């Protein structure tokens, strides 16, 4: 029985759940954590971004069998860091989202960037965010909101 942690809660997945089930669908269908989105299933759009041990990954391409016992997984619902709060309040302040479907992935990626780099450049932002698609093209505000969040973090 695979056992790991999602947002600091211990999760025991029944042995009957197939090991090839992507983590995305474990989160969404088994754990009711629907903030993480399905967009492409091929790690092309970034809507399924979560952290495993703090590192952003595309959960649509992470089979259950590859999740290590005791792994710490963080989803948008469990995002609590200072950086995350700065990102989310900048997202609100600048009204970044339009349709909103991709924004969990955007927020996850932006937060991971700010954890790694306090004052990212435009190139840093492009490099960190290039994998997260937004069909509403909220990119102008994503850039501005990351800078706003960086500023608020000092």
């Amino acid at each position, binding site marked *: 029985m695979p056992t790991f942690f999602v947002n600091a809660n211990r999760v025991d997945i029944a042995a009957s759940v197939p090991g090839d089930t992507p983590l995305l*669908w474990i989160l969404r269908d088994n754990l009711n954590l*629907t903030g993480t989105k399905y967009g492409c299933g091929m790690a092309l759009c970034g809507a399924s971004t979560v952290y495993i041990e703090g590192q952003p990954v595309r959960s649509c391409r992470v089979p259950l069998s590859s999740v290590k016992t005791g792994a710490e997984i963080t989803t948008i619902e469990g995002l609590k860091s200072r950086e995350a709060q700065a990102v989310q309040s900048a997202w609100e302040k600048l009204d970044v989202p339009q*349709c*909103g479907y991709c924004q969990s992935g955007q927020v996850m990626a932006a937060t991971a960037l700010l954890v790694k780099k306090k004052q990212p450049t435009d190139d840093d932002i492009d490099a960190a965010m290039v994998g997260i698609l937004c069909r509403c*093209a909220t*990119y102008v505000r994503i850039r501005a909101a990351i800078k706003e969040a960086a500023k608020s973090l000092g």
Partner: protein
Amino acid sequence: MNPMRMRPRANITPATIDRRVFLKATAAAGAGFTLGIWTGVAAAQASSPAKAAGSAMAGTFEPNAFLTIGRDNSVTVVVKHLEMGQGTYTGLPTLVAEELDAAWSQVRAVGAPADARLYKNLAWGDAQGTGGSTAMRNSFEQYRQAGAAARAMLVSAAAKQWNVPADAIQVKNGVVFHASGKRATFGELAEAAAKEPVPPSVTLKDPKDFVYIGKHVPRIDSKAKSDGTAMFTQDVKLPDMLTAVVAHPPRFDARVKKFDAKAVSSVPGVRYVIEVPNGVAVVATSFWAAKKGRDALTVEWDDTTGIRFSSADIFAEFRKLAARPGKVARNDGDAAKAIDVAAKTLEASFEFPYLAHAAMEPLNCVVRLDGTGCEVWNGEQSQTGDQQAVAQVLGLKPEQVKLNMLFAGGSFGRRANPASDYLVEAASIVKALAGQGKRGIPVKLVWTREDDMRGGYYRPAYLHTLKAGLDAAGNVVAWQHRIVGQSILTGTPFAAMMVKDGVDATSVEGASTLPYAIPNLMVDVHSPDVGVPVLWWRSVGSTHTAFSTETFIDELAAAAGKDPVAFRRALLAKHPKHLAALDLATAKAGWGTPLAPGKAGEKRGRGVAVHESFESVVAQIAEVTVAKDNSFRVDRVVCAVHCGLAVNPDVVRAQMEGGIGFGLSAALHGAITLKDGAVEQSNFHDYPVLRINEMPAVEVHIVASSDPPTGVGEPGVPVIAPAVANALAAATGKRVRSLPLKLA
């Protein structure tokens, strides 16, 4: 309660509250009042709206409940349009809050149920739905009247309680007060206000008194869309719900010949395998089980009726048609004759591929059929048509189909399909289940990204040919524009209104409405029946007509040896909105000043385009840098929009930014192609869309206007491709006439 902030849970409360249930519940709890407002602007302006509204409250005339004031002091606005990113869940409540003098913090939004009598799109006639950038335009008076009437009833209730004249009472920021020091919240007055008669008429605010309209109002949905709690159809979970994934034919119009489900039944979680009109559905306890079940399915297709040609064949046929006159969409003067005698003539042809909408949320819906009717959860963009289509599949009356309108994770037109394709598919599945005695099981239909990409209903492919003549002084004396491509509306309920004498208005809009003063002007169109399912795509006809007209006028300016802005201005004397947008954009962009040079070997250029769509005019100036290897980037876009009164300027800016990104995505990458009748693309690796590293810096400027609001969701889209193509021509001298843009 704000449904948008709800966390999904096992037994969800749908975002849309059934109005009748809601009215009853409200009355029973004494929680507040629901205001019945007459339906529609025309009725509101009739001689006795109060009588109509009064009887509405008595129940003999169905009230149109646009807002509810709760005892908890919440103001809940019932929004009749789909929130798909364009901001209508903020825009329509802004109108109510303005006239009600509510505090913005007390305002909530919920989606309206399906009821065309109450919630029809006033710009569409009798149907309820969202599209054509009409949400604000058709609601501007209606929602303000609703707010003003509620305000009057609150004031009148306070006047009675305080025994003061109503006109001595003021309302500000959600508080009702009187000079004597008496004050009350809306919530405190709600029950008393509900007993007041609806005023016979309301006076709307003088625009100079606006506190929200034209000012900054934050979006209602930003928080829920930044913390993962916003509910989309993909997130709906109902007790006992199953998930369906459908195997679709590899070619449009192909049919199931037979299928072998033996291997499917051994996939854990799979419950049913059902043939539906357009494929075979695998219904399972989870998405992954359904998807694996579909992978295990063997379907033999009968594609004798399916198309077998390729994109190249389609364009070859289009070119043959373009050699012959088509149906005339506009004919001023005698263009053919004027071209014959012109001092100089130019000719060009343009090719536009099919485009997929590719919204981030792949198509999906949840349908439950029980003994009394059917309930649907969907990013619902076309209530009236979808109600009828689902009802027809299930043998119900349209009003037995209850639609819950959830947020859509984008749509760009795809969720408003006259064929109601994915809803009909889901309805067919629950119908088949009911046939097996499994009535009442909710089914979530999920299209994978591949299903979504290959499922058709594309922006049609088009071929345009243009010919123009200049006189010796460089004036445009003649313009001939021929368009070849599938009609979107023929065969749909919109045809009666929008297809006249064989001309589909959506094929020629932007071309037949060319604003330039050209004495001899002819636009004609061929609408061949190709067999590829097509649909409107954000900004519809303008997606192609803006490109051909705005790049060709640029070529004419160059041929006449004139500045492209001055050349356009001279032809736009009778179009003040175009001039205002063009002048604002060029001034802000520094048109006429030199661009900063690029690095060694790079060429830079600036291009302009201006285009009207959905009654708004947008002008854009694009700046590009072309590298030695002919790759290029768009560095900066300056955009000016004339959209009448900008109810929420920041939302207008957001729509222009997003529209530019959406248009640029198609300009740089977008192409759905057919090979041997099958769509070649399947996901974002072979149908790339714009990523952040390709997004230019964007500046948006709004033309100050007190005209009624016009569209903003779409008009930003069509202008960017021609602006970029013109900038590329300025940088390199090369004219690119086919999309997506590639410099040879």
